[in-house]
């Protein structure tokens, strides 16, 4: 393990972080076409993560975090709005974000009434819906991109959608498309364990949010209802870019008393400096609106949205070093 750490660190220092190489997805060995030189040189160093005894989950998100932890590393978890800026762009944006250093990619399934989202993401979802986005179209994109990317893919989805399609059906379709987990931003805690169990049965993780206004007692219960990772909301309010890095140290420390799961922080994280401040405590930094805005701007000015997404995520990944 330590030799692997060294290898990765050396790699990060010695190069200007070429994209493919900084993606520390641990099952890279299964993907010969993108095997990066340092790991290829030390196959036995990567192997233990993937072949660790029964404790290790088959789930990609669990494996990604286990691998990062073993290396003492943190994760970048960009949020992309599916089918935005156009239905055709989903695949290329996911690929670009993956190649640029994302460990897990949150894929927002567009919803007509996203009340936790600020103007940037809400507008992106609205545009995607107008362009014909459906959960099925998102599943199609994920299915076609799944084998080409390393990152864990998590569906951020409103329970309104899950309930309408049917929990069982929705989870089955998401699983068969290649999703590795879910974030349910508006699922009541008393219904979460049921959803979580069904997701687990299909081999997927299930994450709920803990807010700044959540009581300690409730935070503990929420953490226990999660699998894969816990999502800690950095501030009261909706998604959207912020000028200052959130102050989350105490809350993350407290949360660690109740859960061994990785803790991902999101809402308002907008720059590489913010990422750096967040991962000082948390296992992962989630960046949404800031990325969606770049995609928007690129699309509006006729530039390649996926290239813009990749460039920005690469910049954010600087905060992990």
């Amino acid at each position: 393990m330590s030799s692997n750490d060294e290898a990765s660190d050396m790699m990060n220092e010695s190069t200007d972080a070429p994209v493919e190489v900084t993606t520390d997805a641990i099952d890279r060995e299964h993907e010969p076409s993108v095997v990066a030189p340092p790991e290829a040189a030390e196959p036995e160093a990567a192997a233990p993560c993937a072949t660790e005894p029964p404790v290790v989950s088959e789930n990609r998100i669990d494996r990604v975090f286990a691998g990062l932890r073993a290396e003492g590393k943190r994760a970048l978890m960009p949020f992309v709005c599916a089918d935005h800026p156009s239905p055709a762009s989903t695949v290329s944006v996911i690929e670009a974000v993956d190649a640029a250093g994302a460990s897990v990619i949150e894929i927002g399934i567009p919803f007509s009434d996203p009340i936790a989202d600020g103007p940037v993401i809400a507008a992106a979802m609205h545009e995607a819906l107008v362009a014909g986005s459906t959960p099925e179209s998102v599943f199609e994109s994920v299915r076609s991109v799944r084998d080409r990317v390393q990152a864990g893919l998590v569906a951020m989805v409103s329970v309104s959608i899950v309930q309408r399609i049917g929990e069982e059906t929705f989870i089955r379709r998401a699983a068969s498309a290649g999703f590795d987990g879910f974030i349910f931003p508006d699922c009541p805690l008393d219904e979460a364990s049921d959803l979580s169990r069904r997701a687990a049965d299909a081999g997927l993780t299930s994450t709920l949010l803990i807010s700044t206004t959540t009581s300690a007692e409730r935070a503990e219960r929420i953490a226990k209802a999660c699998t894969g990772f816990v999502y800690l909301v950095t501030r009261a309010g909706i998604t959207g870019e912020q000028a200052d890095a959130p102050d989350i140290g105490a809350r993350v420390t407290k949360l660690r008393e109740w859960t061994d799961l990785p803790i991902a922080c999101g809402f308002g994280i907008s720059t590489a400096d913010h990422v750096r401040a967040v991962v000082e405590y948390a296992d992962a930094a989630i960046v949404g609106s800031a990325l969606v805005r770049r995609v928007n701007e690129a699309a509006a000015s006729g530039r390649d949205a996926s290239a813009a997404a990749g460039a920005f995520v690469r910049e954010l990944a600087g905060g992990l070093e």
Partner: protein
Amino acid sequence: MTETTQNAGEAPGEQAVEERRISDYPTREGRFGVYGGAYVPETLVFALEELIETYRSIRENEQFWAELRELLRTWVGRPTPLYGANGLTRHIRSRSGKDKGAKIWLKREDLAHTGAHKINNALGQAMLAVKMGKTRIIAETGAGQHGVATATACAHLGLACDIYMGSEDARRQKLNVVRMQMLGARVIEVDSGSRTLKDATNEAMRDWMGSVETTHYIIGSVVGPHPFPAIVREFQSVIGREAMAQSLRAMGQMPDVIVACVGGGSNAAGIFYPMIEEEIRMIGVEAGGESSDAGRHAAPLSLGSPGILHGSMSYVLQDESGQTSEAHSCSAGLDYPGVGPEHSFWKDQGRVEYCAVTDQQALDAFLLLSRTEGIVPALETSHAIAKAVELAGEESKDANILVNLSGRGDKDVEEALRLMGGEVKPSEMRRVQRNRRKDKKRDGDRNAGKSQPDGKES
């Protein structure tokens, strides 16, 4: 157990299922059967729990209710009258078969301050906000009636007030925008989504996510996450309590049928709930819009299916993948793709019948009531009138139909004119008056010596 029920207006846990009556909902978890609940982002859970706590504590606070009653009396103008609509009844009888033509009674919420039932809830919740130590109020509004009522209550209580309104609605209801501003409120136009009530509600919830510590959200109907449906029902139940006592006095009995229009369902819940355990036929009237095609109506109970919108499970207009559909109604107050969870429960229980009335039928009823009674009803209310008129023609003369006249129609005059194609047709009115003179003569001959059906009673 009775204690729990009294404490929180909620039934105890599942173990009491067999003893629970239809009036004993919601459960402690905010469920009306499978409907209701609280499907909200975690940030709002804190605010909802605080609201549940405050609501529980004020339920036992006699002083709170005494203060509210006094304001309802002196400032809102309650009790609103129960009015025997003889002109309308005569009109119906003149066109229906022998011994048909039930008598129509109107619960005059149009005479409440600001012209609709909305003030009952706005005032009650604003007082609740003061009790919680909140200094700022936010609300959503469609037609502007709930916005005006909220702005009015805030002016009275000295609370800062921001009203979210879809930019499309703000354009259609310019007068109410100005009214709210004159009352000191800030009107925030919403440009997202379809720019109507649904999107204004989203925006108000987004505001609340970031302002829960200082701000209370006064939702405008029996919708949204628990405990809103229960709280709004409580504040609107004054309508039904008054109407029950007034009916006993004026009719000597309970009404046979109660009819109310249903947007979110607050005026209907307000008049139904206090009498829900009685043997009274109840009918909720939704907006049938232009047709039953998707997007052309606002009738989730009649044409929708269960789903989650704005934090609760209820009948909703949604596509097959859970996206909220567009709604349409000529009346902005009914132009909403969702409905309160308790109505979904009452529907499934078979306790209340729900039906839909089209824009055109509502418009006809709007004119009919104006001309037979000298009461211009809101377009929302006109839906209930249309159904009541149809029903009265089929029911026997002895029957009493109570209609919740939820609001007055001054706000709708322009829209009604537009829907009539820019011209108000005069002929109908003349015929109604001729009939009335004939009826009067006939009634007079037959009932010589007997007193006429009464006018205003309360």
